[in-house]
């Protein structure tokens, strides 16, 4: 990844991290000054449950601001064309495959594993996942998916007695 491209993406990441930091800061503030936790009133605010997240959130906010300024400085001028070029990233084949694989992982964990038995869910996931990246011919992918799922289920479920999802 080119440095300027990296820095443009760094800007977005820093903004997201900044928002996370602010959220934690607000919540930890509540956990320091509006809590009845034992010891806080007698000894001081520095033993409150919110102290550690408070320190961390301040650190995250400061660092994300520094990161933001570095990224802004090094990303070059924000021309409209450069942003359009940047948006090309989201339309590339690699990104499509990556997004499809992420979607498939969520589908496997949240839908397939909860609705189907482990072996069946895994066969389906492996088949779809390998098909997206065209790992081999359909027939080979089907065989690999079935054999791998059965082997994993037998090895971990039966041999090692590990509970499967």
């Amino acid at each position, binding site marked *: 990844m080119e440095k300027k491209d990296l820095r443009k993406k760094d800007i977005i990441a820093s903004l997201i991290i900044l928002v996370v930091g602010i959220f934690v800061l607000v919540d930890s503030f509540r956990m320091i000054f509006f809590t009845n936790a034992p010891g806080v009133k007698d000894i001081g605010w520095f033993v409150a449950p919110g102290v550690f997240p408070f320190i961390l959130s301040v650190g*995250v906010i400061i660092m994300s601001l520094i990161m933001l300024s570095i990224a802004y400085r090094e990303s070059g001028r924000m021309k409209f064309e450069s942003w359009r070029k940047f948006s090309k990233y989201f339309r590339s084949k690699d990104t499509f495959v990556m997004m499809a694989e992420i979607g498939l992982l969520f589908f496997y964990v949240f839908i397939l594993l909860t609705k189907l038995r482990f072996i069946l869910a895994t066969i389906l996931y492996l088949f779809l996942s390998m098909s997206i990246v065209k790992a081999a011919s359909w027939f080979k992918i089907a065989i690999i998916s079935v054999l791998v799922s059965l082997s994993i289920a037998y090895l971990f479920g039966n041999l090692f007695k590990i509970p499967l999802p």
Partner: protein
Amino acid sequence: MENLWLSIIHLLTSPNIILTMFISTTIGIIIGALPGLTATMAIAILVGLTYSLSTDMCFAIIMSVYVGAIYGGSITAILLNIPGTGSAAATALDGYPLAVRGEANFAIGITRTASFFGTVFGLIMLLTIAPQLSKIALLFTSVEIALLALFGVLVSGFVAAEDLKIKGWIAAFLGMLVSCVGIDLLHAYPRFTFNNPMMMSGIFFVPAMIGVFSIPQVLDNLRLVLPPRMKQTGSIIPKWSQISKYIPLSLRSGVIGTAIGIIPGAGEDIGAWMAYFAAKSTSREKEKFGKGSYEGIVAAETGNNAAIGGALIPLLTLSIPGSPPAAVLLGALLLHGIRPGPMLMFEFPEFLQQLGGIMLVASFILLISGILVAKFFIKALDIPPKILMPIVAVLSVIGAYAIHIRIFDVYVMLFLGVCYYFLFKLKYPVAPFVLGVILGPMIDENLRRAFWVHGGLLPVLTRPIALVLFVGVILLILLQFSWFQKLFTKKV
């Protein structure tokens, strides 16, 4: 020392453990050799999968895979010019030119012996330094433990960052923030739980580390296409005369590898590079480096394997891992009720020797299984990542689920893994994040306990060790600012 021999005798007289170690080392070498599969990822998944096994068996498997995987990376570095693990990147510089010259098998053979030597050297250092360091560590109270852990996390962020150093620290802080989720350890106060009963018990480190170590690798390597392997010619077993001339170099690389391994988060990758650069700068044949130098591959492989022992020194004595795989190993130790740190030598007096015995036996097994992999299982390298990566994703799901038998842990693993994938692409290092998740509760609990006992920050700093560590943390932070660096260099 007596316990070490007893541990070795115990291992050698337990056929099931020896057989398991043999299989694990072999699998470790193959995992290390396969591009896209790393030692850390393998150990992270194994922590979940070996949870139900006895402590002996669990660490026999994990340590064998660890030792095997760090060596395995060199096979692909030599045959494909792609380091199987990050720690073999330096080996590729000279290993591949040797393979092009038709000396692939000899290079594989010599790196195997260098890896063996490095592991044994690191182990000797571990057994020598760890007991002494743990005596010093006994002087540490809550505040020193908290500051030391914080220092470790910050150093890790500093060392591991490939791009800007601040990214390593952001990763470390995010990891510590993740560790704050759940019931607070001192007040039993729910933090960031969103009234979700599943969140009350917090985010366990095993699903978190499996997620951030495996999911980004799975997504990143799905479209990786491997080049064809170089032809293997020549003998795979080097002669003693060929090995013995590199002993002084191996000793020096072992010292460098172990020393780098001790630095939190630095680990095997940097150990290999430092040993390589040291060998290059002191060699009489500098011009051969990068074009197929034996000294180059010997130094890199001794350095990375010696870092294994080095990384275990701070892990076992101070509870601060020296490398990413050691961070995952910390998770495994805690999971089996073994709390590393100053008290380890008292609570589990035989554990260090037990671990030493396992490492020694694993390194001897490496000598044999390394030949087997290079001769008979080499075809495993032809499995395309497109097939391998979805299987790794399934193993990650099982690993995350197996510890507490909760589907929520799988959700956590997936959520953190996918989130971290984007950070990983932006070159945020993974190791400081994991260190933050694991050491976060230790820092939080000990720091507030110290405040509670001493009544504030200033009384805490009257303790000399605490003051030194506090100054160290502040200096480490200030050194990131250019104005402070200028001030410092001007004065110097």
